[in-house]
């Protein structure tokens, strides 16, 4: 219970003024521009867009600056801004088969058509601090080769021919939208994917890791991971046809999971899916593993009681803004609650002492 507490206005104003000063830091050091954050801290910008659930690199960079680099605080700012925007509509589902891939790898097929394209990856770096970056002025140039002109096909297409992988059933059903209707359980796969793609990266990673360590193990291979830009197309009522309204960078992960078969399904490969705004590889792979774990019921698998199989547990705790809101509210004044608790504990203590006292006297 909270009661209105008056008297803190001055202290609050001064605290916010100090926050502004601390945010700026030492004025002998140049101030960061939004463009610098957008261009040079782009993976932080990507995370804020993914979990803030709003693709706008400049806004995400502004939020990071305002939040002093606290990404969950930045995500909170983006979520708050998002609620002020009128919703113009829903895009047509993006076609990731036409992605202009910066990176595209498969851990299952070495010679996949389109090849293993590493892109700008941290993989194979030695994770040694590079002190050259502490000096200024270097503008490196990447080598080039003859560019691929055609679309890069999805790896799972090749498995489909053999009928050895579970098919994704095409539909044009309207998916639920958790920004419009609160989550209810049991939910469904489209809602789970919406929840996971905006879920906290650390939480989704931890859940995915738990499946790898044996809590509902699902034997995942990264069938394909691709990063690049796709066009976003929307039907415009006043035109009577669809146009591109922009393009977004996405990371897509398709896992291919070993599956022994169940009461209802023959032995085959099954699939998990991750799709996340920006270059967000760890999140995308984690999302695919958790998606696969949550599909146990539809595949007729046993419920092993693992946390990653429990959609209510996973989806209710994946959102870092809900979590931080509830967690951090306990630091706000609870004087009256605490006073009543204090009275209660004192009373219990008096009663306990009264019960003990005669016994002690009798001994």
């Amino acid at each position, binding site marked *: 219970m909270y009661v209105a507490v008056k008297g803190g206005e001055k202290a609050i104003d001064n605290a916010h003024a100090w926050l502004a000063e601390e945010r700026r830091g030492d004025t002998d050091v140049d101030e960061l521009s939004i463009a610098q954050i957008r261009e040079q801290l782009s993976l932080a910008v990507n995370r804020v867009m*993914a979990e803030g659930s*709003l*693709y*706008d690199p*400049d*806004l995400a960079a502004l939020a990071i600056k305002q939040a002093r680099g606290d990404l969950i605080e930045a995500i909170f700012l983006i979520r708050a801004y*998002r609620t002020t*925007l*009128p*919703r*113009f509509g*829903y*895009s*047509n589902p*993006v076609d*990731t*088969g036409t992605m*202009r891939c*910066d990176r595209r790898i498969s851990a299952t097929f070495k010679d996949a058509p389109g090849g*293993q*394209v*590493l892109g*700008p990856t941290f993989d194979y770096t030695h994770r040694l601090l590079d002190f050259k970056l502490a000096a200024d002025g270097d503008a490196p140039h990447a*080598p*080039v*080769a003859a*560019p691929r002109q055609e679309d890069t096909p999805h790896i*799972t297409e090749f498995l489909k021919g053999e009928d050895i992988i579970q098919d*994704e*059933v*095409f*539909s044009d*059903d*309207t*998916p*639920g939208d958790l*920004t419009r209707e609160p989550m209810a359980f049991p939910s469904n*796969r*489209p809602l789970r*994917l*919406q929840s996971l793609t*905006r879920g906290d990266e650390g939480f989704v990673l931890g859940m995915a890791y738990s499946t790898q360590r044996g809590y509902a193990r699902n034997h995942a291979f990264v069938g394909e991971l691709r990063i690049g830009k796709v*066009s*976003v197309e*929307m039907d*415009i009522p*006043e*035109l009577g*046809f*669809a*146009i*591109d*309204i*922009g*393009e*977004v960078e996405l990371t897509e992960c*398709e896992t291919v999971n070993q599956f022994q078969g169940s009461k209802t399904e023959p032995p085959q490969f099954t699939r998990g*899916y991750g*799709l996340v*705004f920006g270059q967000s590889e760890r999140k995308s792979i984690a999302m695919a593993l958790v998606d696969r774990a949550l599909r146990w019921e539809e595949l007729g698998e046993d419920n092993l009681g693992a946390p990653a199989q429990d959609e209510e547990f996973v989806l209710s705790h994946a959102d870092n803004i809900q979590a931080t809101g509830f967690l951090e509210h306990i630091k706000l004044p609870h004087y009256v609650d605490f006073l009543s608790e204090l009275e209660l504990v004192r009373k219990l203590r008096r009663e306990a002492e009264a019960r003990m006292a005669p016994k002690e006297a009798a001994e």
Partner: protein
Amino acid sequence: MTDQQHSDTAARQEWMGLMARAPEPAIMELWDAVAERPAFDWLRKPEIGGVMVRGRTGATGAPFNLGEVTVTRCSVVLQDGAVGHGYVQGRSKAKAEVAAVIDAMMQTPAAEVIRATIIDPLKRREQTARTARAAKAAATKVEFFTMARGED
């Protein structure tokens, strides 16, 4: 739809898409060089909003909601009655306005000039940028080779 209507629609989709995707400075630089800019009235003043982007489960299955993208839109009418719409990515009202005016002009006798001075350069610019990225990606493609085992 007749073939003519199909090709008109395709052409309009192309220039509206280019305007939506192109960076604002690139559009403004080209627009600033246009000598004859028509007067117009607003049908809908620029408005910033969000569009919910959808994906598909497993890339090819059922739609799901991925997250929103910022979009700015507006509509204009020129004095000759041509109506133009701007739907552009981001939060720039100025970019949306230029996109709408250009969309309207592309339906007037000014179309040829606008195509040559704005649409075609934007298209080339986008193609160049995409090719440059694809070339860097191509340079990171793994070329596997098998070690000769020397058995023959």
